[in-house]
């Protein structure tokens, strides 16, 4: 517990009668990079969405950077400042330019002066390799570019933790690589804590410190990528891997 930056203890969640998360226990160390996989409907997205309170858990304890997530707006907002999130469908703001999307959080939430926020935004746009798109609107960019903008938008808040919720699932195949490349360089260069829900097993092998396999709302298995992909311990994991990895 001591150096865990995210910790979930006996977390449960129901949608009506449907038990989405069953007794989840997870400790994430600072700087650790975790890939979460599992069949659809296994609760993996719900789990990471609980970490920044986009979903509310019903029992158990979630702690982020030493602060417990409870129903207190100020505390939730404080935690959201520390946690960046990248969505499957980007969720960029279509009425703002790329640059305006990026400086919105820093100027309004972190109260940075506009010039400083813009300089930072340009730095991250260069990092995701699209500085020349700064003055376009999201609707004028390709899916892969939009997702990279979304990554840059999260980074502009200089979060301690990044959550990725199936960041490449909505992309055309030829754009998946450009987004994954950005994520790989982010993981390898910055040592940022990352939790990534994805089916990109190549990405998992390359950067993950730990792979977590979920099914039916439970963490079924976890381990180092080599160990998990090479020698899965449970039938459910074996079955899942045989369907995903050809």
């Amino acid at each position, binding site marked *: 517990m001591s150096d865990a930056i995210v910790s979930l203890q006996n977390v449960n969640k129901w949608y009506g009668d449907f038990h989405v998360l069953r007794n989840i226990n997870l400790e994430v160390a600072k700087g650790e990079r975790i890939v979460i996989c599992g069949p659809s409907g296994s609760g993996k997205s719900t789990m990471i969405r609980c970490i920044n309170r*986009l979903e509310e858990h019903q029992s158990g304890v979630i702690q982020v950077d030493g602060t417990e997530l409870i129903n207190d707006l100020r505390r939730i907002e404080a935690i*959201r400042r520390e946690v960046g999130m990248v969505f499957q*469908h980007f969720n960029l*703001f*279509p*009425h703002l330019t790329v640059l305006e999307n990026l400086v919105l*959080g820093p100027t309004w939430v972190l109260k940075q002066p506009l010039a400083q926020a813009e300089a930072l935004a340009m730095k991250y746009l260069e990092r995701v390799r699209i500085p020349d798109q700064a003055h376009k609107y999201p609707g004028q960019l390709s899916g892969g570019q939009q997702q990279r903008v979304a990554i840059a938008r999260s980074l502009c808040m200089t979060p301690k933790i990044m959550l990725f919720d199936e960041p490449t699932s909505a992309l055309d195949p030829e754009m998946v690589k450009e987004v994954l490349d950005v994520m790989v360089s982010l993981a390898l260069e910055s040592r940022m804590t990352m939790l990534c829900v994805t089916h990109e097993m190549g990405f998992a092998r390359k950067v993950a410190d730990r792979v977590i396999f979920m099914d039916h709302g439970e963490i079924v298995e976890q381990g180092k990528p080599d160990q998990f992909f090479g020698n899965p311990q449970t039938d459910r994991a074996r079955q899942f891997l045989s369907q995903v990895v050809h």
Partner: protein
Amino acid sequence: MSSTPPTAAPQLPFATARMSWRRIRESILHSPASVLGTVLVVWLILMAAPALLNWLLLKASFTAPDARTCREASGACWSFIREKYRLILFGTYPFDQQWRPLLATLLLIGSIVVTGVQRLRGRGLIVWWALALATVAWLMWGGLFGLTFVENVRWGGLPLTLMLSVFGIAFAFPFGVCLALGRRSRMPAIKAICVGYIEFIRGVPLISLLFMSSVMLPLFLPEGFSIDKLLRAQIAIIMFAAAYIAEIVRGGLQSIPKGQYEGADSIGLSYWQQMRKVIVPQALKVVIPPLVSTFIALFKDTSLVVIIGIFDLTQSAKAALADPAWSGFGVEAYLFIGLIYFAFCYCISKYSSTLERSLAREQQASPGR
């Protein structure tokens, strides 16, 4: 903002003519039913046009010195308008002071145009309006810097209509947005108040609200305390329009996908920051057309204040008709004010479609969810 150069391909005159002939054939002569429709419409126009033209222009009287000679002409009596336009435009405002409401009107229209072309934004615009409204108030009331004082019961005509509309829109719009947000609030008390308010106001005609404000409200106020009649009517108009604006804006809010809220949540924006920077701007853009319809309706609905005896444009037209020397020219009077109303409404509507197009051009393709 980049503007694309207009595609002005030079065309030969007869090529253009042939093109337009083809367009005519395609749009009004493409099936037997449309041929029949076209013939019918053309026949109706041919029947009506000469009589209309005669009445409006050819046999109309423009220069008759009094009503009797005017009546002898079989067409419209535009002399009536020439005689009475100042009464219609400015109501019972002291005759020799009518340059003041004229200036006020021009200033109001100018301020609306300045807002519309978006040359001034933010603080500059607020300062502009503050100065403009102060000047309008000074011109209309007077009593300072050498202008004689004019009570607001003597105000009338076009400036009054414009003021009721401008203040109506300026206050009803933010109020309506707040009501719409309140109706979607998770806090039950706020939601209940907003729903109750909106449903109550929408269930009551504007006329009855105006009556209530002018007849009933004074009964409830303590003795010796009274709110100006004009102000009461203005408040009734604002309250009425806000409820409709709220429902329109609510429709826009509901069209914003959940992902926008989550995206805003994820970068830590508070509720009010989300609404102000992310949700409401997008929602308003969606509802520009119905919103403008409401503004136009509000502009025309200000004419209902006649029933509580306020001298707006419609009422002053009626007053002009009440002159026994010039009685019986109702059609001309109402055509005249109709034209004024039309000019304003048409400009509002044109402006809204320009605005929509420029906003659409900015963003081109609609983005992912």
